[in-house]
């Protein structure tokens, strides 16, 4: 690397040998998101940035990409101080970013998405043929299969991810920021993606990999920096790190990564779903004949890549979406099409996937949110009047029992953290000791501490005999909690396996639609 002439990447761009951020400070109203952070990355390495939600990882990277402006601190590229005020500055300096939420325009084709914001050779006219040609070239170099003429809305999530990478490479990115790129992929797709990353690193790209998944960070990176509460907690070469040591650095205390579970004592069938069909919001078939049985005292995990019918299934069961065919039974009683209020009374509880949209009213207070369902029932109501004393008493109990961190009951819900909002929903739903619990993505976007707590409560419910359907896109979560695992793909259950008999590889194949004979009893 001591060549006098600058080395070029296969894309023809010059490399970024060393990027360094020094003393970065970023303040948001009331929060210090980055507290003088130092961070660097070199050509030919993957530097992982690890930390919980809200630790400052994304903020730091958005500063590097010009989306946020730092209050203090400097950025150096190959020893030169640079100022990055906008994404176009970052792109001009050879910095690319793959966002957690894809930055693609669904109605446009792959080529149009890539061409977006780029000067065309035939300005002011588009030259999509030239763009497509270069996309194919890049795709071949890095093993990224994409079809330039396809509209993005037709693409699967894994393909969209590849388009994002092609887009960054097309813009000449020498340094790539990858913000949780694996969040929505199957294990096999993650493997393919990692192969691409290895290739890029070998060619001399510099990669920053943001994640909170420990095993992925250990698998892909050369160095790891851990952030907590806006500060760098530590930086370590990957070969010297372990899952346990990293988790401890992230949370600041020891964490339980594996739970002890008493053997399952599955009882009678509580919830039965038979040949269930339903439509998605766009009117396409979302559920195509789902069959499931959920027994007392068990957790049935529903694994699958997002958008394969999980949301529709939970909504149909809870009466929020009509079934076009098939039926749902709760302890032998048909409940297809029953209203959520009625289902609540029958002992069905629901933790919705989009907690801020479907789970709470963010401008209401903590107490009001806790009483959303029961406010009109005695003892919380007397005729048409609310009984404030009973409500206050009940809420205080829930806040205490579920360890919800809130200044008081009258605090507006929106000022709580994600983890505490989820605990509030959990408290509300579990307070009724449900017969059946539908938990959709119960720990998504929740910090490790709260995740651990929520998991413990779910296991506690299991011991109490609640039948739980745990819908999660996080395989680790399902493997940690579920007794049986069902995999959903394009609105059908591809297979159901006992946890003891399940392997990640096999589940990954099923998540990609490979069918399998049921081995679960």
């Amino acid at each position, binding site marked *: 690397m001591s060549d006098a002439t600058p080395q070029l990447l296969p894309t023809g761009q010059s490399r970024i040998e060393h990027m360094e951020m020094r003393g970065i400070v970023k303040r948001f109203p009331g929060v210090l998101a980055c507290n003088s952070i130092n961070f660097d990355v070199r050509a030919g390495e993957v530097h992982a940035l690890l930390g919980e939600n809200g630790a400052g990882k994304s903020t730091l990277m958005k500063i590097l*990409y010009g*989306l*946020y*402006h730092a209050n203090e601190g400097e950025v150096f590229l190959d020893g030169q101080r640079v100022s990055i005020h*906008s*994404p*176009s500055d970052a*792109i001009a300096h050879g910095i690319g*970013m793959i*966002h957690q*939420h*894809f*930055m*693609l*325009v*669904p*109605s*446009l084709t792959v080529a*149009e*998405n890539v*061409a*977006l*914001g*780029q*000067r*065309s050779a035939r*300005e*002011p*006219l*588009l030259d999509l043929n030239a763009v497509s040609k270069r996309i194919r070239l890049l795709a071949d170099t890095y093993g990224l299969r994409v079809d330039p003429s396809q*509209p993005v*809305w037709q693409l699967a999530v894994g393909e969209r991810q590849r388009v994002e990478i092609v*887009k960054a490479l097309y813009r000449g990115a020498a340094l790539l920021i990858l913000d949780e790129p694996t969040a929505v992929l199957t294990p096999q797709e993650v493997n393919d993606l990692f192969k691409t990353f290895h290739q890029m690193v070998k060619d001399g790209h510099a990669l920053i990999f943001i994640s909170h998944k420990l095993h992925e960070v250990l698998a892909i990176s050369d160095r790891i920096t851990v952030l907590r509460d806006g500060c760098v907690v530590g930086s370590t070469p990957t070969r010297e790190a372990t899952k346990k040591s990293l988790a401890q650095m992230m949370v600041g205390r020891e964490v339980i990564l594996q739970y002890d579970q008493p053997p399952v004592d599955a009882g009678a069938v509580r919830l039965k779903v038979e040949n269930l069909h339903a439509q998605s919001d766009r009117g396409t078939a979302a559920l195509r004949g789902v069959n499931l049985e959920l027994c007392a005292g068990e957790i049935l995990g529903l694994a699958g890549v997002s958008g394969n019918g999980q949301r529709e299934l939970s909504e149909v069961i809870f009466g929020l979406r009509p079934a076009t065919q098939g039926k749902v039974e709760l302890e032998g009683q048909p409940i297809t099409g029953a209203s959520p209020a009625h289902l609540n009374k029958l002992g069905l509880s629901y933790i919705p996937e989009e907690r801020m949209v479907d789970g709470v009213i963010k401008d209401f207070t903590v107490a009001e949110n806790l009483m959303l369902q029961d406010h009109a029932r005695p003892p919380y109501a007397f005729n048409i009047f609310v009984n404030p004393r009973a409500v206050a008493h009940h809420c205080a109990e829930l806040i205490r029992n579920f360890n919800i961190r809130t200044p008081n009951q009258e605090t507006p819900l929106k000022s709580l953290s994600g983890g505490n909002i989820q605990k509030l929903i959990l408290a509300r739903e579990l307070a009724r000791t449900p017969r059946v619990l539908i938990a959709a993505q119960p720990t998504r976007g929740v910090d490790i501490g709260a995740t651990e707590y929520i998991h413990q409560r779910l296991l506690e419910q299991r011991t109490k005999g609640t039948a739980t359907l745990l819908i999660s896109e996080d395989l680790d979560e399902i493997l940690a909690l579920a007794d049986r695992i069902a995999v959903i793909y394009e609105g059908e259950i591809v297979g159901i396996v006992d946890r003891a008999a399940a392997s990640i590889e096999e589940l990954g194949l099923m998540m990609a639609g490979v069918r399998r004979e049921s081995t679960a009893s």
Partner: protein
Amino acid sequence: MIEDLLTASVIASGIRLAMPYLYAAIGETFGQRSGVLNLGVEGVMLLGAYSSFWGVYQLTPDKATSFDPMALAAGVLVAVLVGLLMGLATAFINVTLQAEQGISGIGIYLFGLGMSTLLFQKNFSQVVTVKGFPKIHFPVLSDIPLIGEIFFRQNLLVYGAFALIPLAWFVLHKTTFGLRLRAVGQNPEAADSMGISVTRVRYMAVIIGGVLASVAGASMSIGHLNVFQQNLTDGRGFIAVALVYFGSWRPYGVMYGALLFSLVTALQIKAVTIGIGIPSELLSMTPYLLTIIALIFASRRIDQPAALTRPFERGE
């Protein structure tokens, strides 16, 4: 009966009636494809109608027996300038100040209605006419039976309106500006992350919309009716907004909608004049009824701008 109604002159007048809808709705299509809903089209049309009328009236030489090309060109130019200013104001309110677009549009409409009425009453004591754009006579073509009357005896602004359709399609789909515009209306965050200035693109789109709305007004006051009076446009700007939805945000879809609507209007006018035994009040409702029915069945296409009416702000 049908023969009495569906004559060449009725179709020709339907095509003429489509003209203001085309200008206004294509302009609105640009705004909406960038994510900005401008309900104030009607008000800008009224200002354009008044200002171009005023320009032509002032500049046409006294006692002129026929039209004056310079005066007409100046009239259109005045409308373009007024549209530019109104577009700039609309963009400032909706993009920079991030106003609630449904409400700010009503404000712009009321401003246009009030201002054009005030200026008209102040500068003209009575309704007067001007010499507007004349029908063009093409040798041979204009004399073909039926076809000639329908297609080759229209004025320049009518041809301009129909030429605008392929032009708009071309700009939207074949230029880098069109790509930026569509991206900004569908996913402004993505466009921003690609280094595109969402604000600048939306300003451009809204200003184009303002200019075309103003020209739409001019096409009525100096290209068709050749008069100005209070509330001359009579709701056509709102119909134009509806036509954008009806046409699924596509120039050609907008054109089919405008033609359907204006042909039904022409038929209805004819039906009233020859008297077919239905009260004219009921007949004059048919085009609007048709719009409502068509809108109910119009499909939500993939081209519907996902970020319509949503202001953009970087999450900082």
